[in-house]
């Protein structure tokens, strides 16, 4: 029951984000969708992922997007149409993708599995798994994040130097 309510909230936020005209309103709507998804993770018993979702998406990614909206002037309230020129074909492709996925979920024997017990994922278990079994992937993700952030700064700053 609770799952249904937050699923509807998440989908409504996502739909509102792509149908609203003002970009700032879109960002607020997508924040609702991200927060709703975080609650769904908490309901599924993945506390750490739910909190990470709030920290990373609601905290960091949305702020980054707001900065991008504010730095690209006159994009927050577009004058022309908000849909791209090929919107009809795009919508048809998206609907076809959903039809295929819904059919696959309906047909799959995996979606009829019932596991009554709630699995545990305590912070201690996640921490020891990250430090022991998944230590190498963790290091690689750290390296990737450092490289990506340096790259992002380089891409965003370079233009100004050339103009001088």
């Amino acid at each position: 029951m609770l799952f249904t309510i937050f699923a509807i909230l998440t989908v409504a936020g996502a739909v509102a984000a792509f149908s609203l005209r003002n970009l700032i309103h879109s960002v607020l709507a997508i924040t609702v969708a991200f927060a709703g998804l975080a609650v769904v993770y908490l309901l599924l018993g993945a506390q750490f992922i739910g909190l990470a979702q709030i920290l990373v998406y609601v905290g960091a990614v949305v702020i980054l997007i707001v900065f991008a909206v504010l730095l690209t002037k006159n994009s927050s309230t577009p004058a022309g149409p908000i849909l791209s020129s090929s919107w009809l074909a795009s919508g048809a492709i998206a609907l076809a993708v959903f039809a295929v996925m819904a059919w696959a979920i309906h047909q799959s024997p995996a979606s009829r599995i019932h596991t009554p017990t709630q699995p545990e994922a305590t912070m201690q278990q996640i921490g020891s798994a990250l430090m022991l079994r998944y230590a190498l992937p963790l290091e690689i993700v750290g390296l990737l994040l450092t490289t990506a952030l340096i790259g992002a700064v380089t891409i965003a700053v370079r233009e100004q130097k050339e103009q001088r």
Partner: protein
Amino acid sequence: MTPLAGCLLLAALLFTIGLAGALMRRNAIMVLIGIELMLNAANLNFIAFWRYGPHPEALTGVLFAIFSIGVAAAEAAVGLALIISLYRHLKSANIDEVTSMHG
């Protein structure tokens, strides 16, 4: 409908909304938001299969979701830097106007 099927349907719906938004909107920032939503739908699938799968004690789904969130954060930073750089070039964040790869 079992809980797993409900989770998978919610993820499929979110993926479709993200795909439709990324393909249909004109603004490059909205395209990036669509991609983020698609990544979130994939994360929901990882968590759903961890919760209702046969071996939840292995924590594979949870750890995959953690790494996926990390990669998505890196992707968002680079994507937004590219949009800002593009805006400086063209004075517009409209993807219909980006017709050449030449700087």
